[in-house]
């Protein structure tokens, strides 16, 4: 296990340090109706401004429960979970790092939930009644309006490749994406896209051709875009972007219509949860119509519940994009993502393709004038 921990440290080191710094690290809701003193402990990798409306809604409905939300990085969640010395033990674990969450459940650390809501939950969004996806967040392209005005709108990966190869000089250093070597999310997207599309390496090559800046977090990319440092960002987390773009009208979001990765936050109740009854109530809320409605109306995370089809739901996105949406499958394939050699192999190829694009662009630049 220590081997895995060291490996994870390198993977997750810079997944979201800035986000964590900006947000509070803990939220506390005392019991109002004289319930038990011990709070329900939720460990999550979800910024407090995003999750607070949800927790407030839940607390409003269940005033007898005291709640504590610990906002941690995905790595800290994983590491703390496997370290038995860290107390208090969490009752619910929420994280967007799908492979790590899957691995914990696969190793038997999650307990099954047999409630009505869990039974009705769509099969593609759960695993074994132990691991549940409760959000639906597409991975998007964000660009400044001036880019669309100059070069036309970008609505697909093919558009992006054309743009990057056709306007190399104008875009040099103005494109930003995740660094798969330092960001866990970026690495997950890279591995999934490499599986999804044979033209992915062409795109990496093109990204290398414009000296794309490699960033660690979605927030870094969004702020760079707002500053005007970047014209276009590729593979940003849609839920953060939607929130951010609302206050920055100069930015525009595009969900690619050829294929769009969808990442999901996964929740489970640990086998050794100190308050399993309260944890089940919370998970039932997250998966129930009330909680899902709160997710769609109060947050930008995207609700999954099949009965909901308003804005901010998976159904609404599906109606618009249809088959192009590619949720990352919750299955053993995720384990491959965590393989040490697999990671080295993918990053080696990624770097090679990226650098080959850079070199090719340099030689062309030298010969063309």
């Amino acid at each position: 296990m220590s081997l895995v921990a060291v490996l994870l440290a390198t993977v997750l080191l810079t997944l979201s340090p800035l986000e964590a710094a900006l947000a509070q690290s803990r939220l506390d809701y005392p019991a109002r109706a004289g319930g038990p003193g011990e709070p329900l402990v939720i460990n999550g990798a979800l910024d407090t401004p995003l999750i607070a409306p949800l927790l407030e809604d839940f607390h409003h409905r269940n005033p007898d429960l005291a709640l504590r939300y610990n906002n941690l990085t995905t790595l800290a969640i994983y590491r703390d979970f496997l370290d038995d010395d860290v107390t208090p033990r969490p009752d619910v674990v929420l994280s967007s790092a799908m492979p790590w969450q899957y691995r914990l459940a696969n190793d038997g650390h999650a307990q099954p939930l047999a409630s009505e809501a869990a039974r009705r939950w769509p099969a593609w969004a759960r695993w074994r009644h132990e691991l549940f996806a409760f959000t639906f967040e597409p991975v998007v392209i964000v660009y400044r309006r001036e880019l669309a005005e100059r070069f036309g709108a970008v609505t697909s990966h093919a558009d992006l490749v054309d743009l990057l190869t056709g306007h190399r000089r104008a875009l040099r250093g103005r494109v930003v994406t995740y660094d798969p070597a330092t960001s866990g999310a970026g690495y997950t997207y890279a591995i999934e896209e490499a599986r999804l599309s044979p033209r992915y390496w062409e795109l990496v090559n093109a990204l290398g051709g414009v000296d794309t800046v490699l960033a660690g977090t979605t927030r870094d990319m969004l702020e760079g875009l707002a500053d005007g440092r970047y014209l276009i960002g590729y593979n940003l987390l849609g839920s953060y972007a939607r929130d951010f773009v609302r206050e920055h009208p100069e930015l525009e979001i595009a969900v690619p219509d050829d294929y769009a990765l969808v990442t999901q936050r996964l929740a489970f109740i640990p086998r050794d949860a100190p308050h399993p009854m309260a944890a089940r109530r919370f998970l039932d809320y997250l998966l129930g119509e009330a909680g899902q409605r709160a997710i769609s109306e109060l947050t930008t995370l995207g609700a999954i519940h099949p009965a909901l089809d308003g804005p901010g739901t998976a159904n609404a996105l599906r109606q618009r994009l249809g088959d192009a949406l590619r949720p990352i499958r919750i299955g053993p394939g995720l384990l491959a993502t965590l393989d040490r050699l697999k990671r080295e192999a993918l990053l080696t190829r990624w770097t090679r393709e990226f650098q080959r694009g850079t070199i090719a662009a340099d030689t062309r630049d030298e010969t063309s004038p």
Partner: protein
Amino acid sequence: MKATDSLYRRLITWLLLPLLGLGALMLMQAYRSAHDAADRAFDRLLEAASLAIAEQVKWQDEQLWLDLPPAALEMLATDAEERVFYALYDNHGRFITGNADLPALPGGDDSLRFADTRWHDMTLRVGVRPARLDSWSQRERFEVRVAHTREGRDQLTWSLFTGSASRIALMALLAIAVVLLAIRIALAPLTRLRRAIRHRDPRTLAPLDLPLPRELAELRETLNELLARMRRVRANQERFIGDASHQLRTPLAGLSARAELALRQPEPAAWRSALETIQASSARTARLAVQLLSLTRLNNPEAAPAPSTLDLVAVARDATRDAFAACHRAGIALELDAPDTAIPLAGIDWQLEEALNNLIDNARRYGARHVTVRVQADPPRLQVEDDGPGIPAERRLLMLRPFHRGAETGDGSGLGLAIVDSIARGHGARLTLDDGRHGQGLCVTMTFQGDRA
């Protein structure tokens, strides 16, 4: 015999118990084969996944290298959403990569091996594929180990098992129905026999005749033999009763006639003579009645008294003493010839005394002058010999039948030897009638079966 003991129940028990045992065995066998079939089917997944992984292993940067295909792991999980584990080991058994440290399986060098193991409170099915990298410069052995939990296998096992279990249950039901029907059909003749016996007129002893299977036909023949014996016994009884009433009627008719004759005569002297005749005749009739009674008693097997140990010599001495006075009056010499030592025997003393009395009495009545009662040991034997007229050899057997008198003129009842015969039979003794010594008279001998005490 217990009230619950029944042939039907025995048959059902001994047919259904083995049938149930057989059913249980078949169920166990069905479970095993369902389990094996499920394992065989799902082991193909382990085989395919380990092959897909092994094909991606290569030698790079002086070490084993694996570009893990996610599809290989996906194929290990079926609809049952099994937990999935994999690992790659080099030829020294060192862990290269994987998500779990899976155990090695003992076994052959190059064959794919499967086994169930416990791992962190889970039962895993592990497949181990030994393989070898063959490149120009490098020959490297390695091992791919893959595993998954058993949910899918258990589901398949269960569905296969319930399928065959329901077929077995159906067959068992059919078998039970057939067994019940067969028992009923097989036992039907027994019911017929029972009905035939129950519906018989209790007075009839006619043989049963109804068609029956062989085993019951034997029972029917045995019953018929018993009935035939009973018929013979009843014929004997009826004849005996007829003879007895005839024997009693004759003296009674004589008494009545003598009394009537006397009443017609006026003088008392005639009355006196008639009364004397009547007295003698009624005494004879009374003795006849006593003998009839004892013969009836002797012939009733249900009233047989238990034998006790007695001394044959003492019995003979008592009988001789009792008869001595009567013989002396009649001028007959009665002699006892017995050893000094006791001869023990199991028997009924009063019956033996009765037999001796009858024999001595017979000898006296039929004109003997000298009667010898003889007792011999080894074999125990009672003998009464006289010097009277004797019985011709051809008539001796007839003499044993009741009311068969040796000489028409005697005043015997004709029951004496019949009574002796019954007593001898009751004691399991052989009764023989021979000539007396010097070729005249009669010698009656009861030879006992030896010391049975």
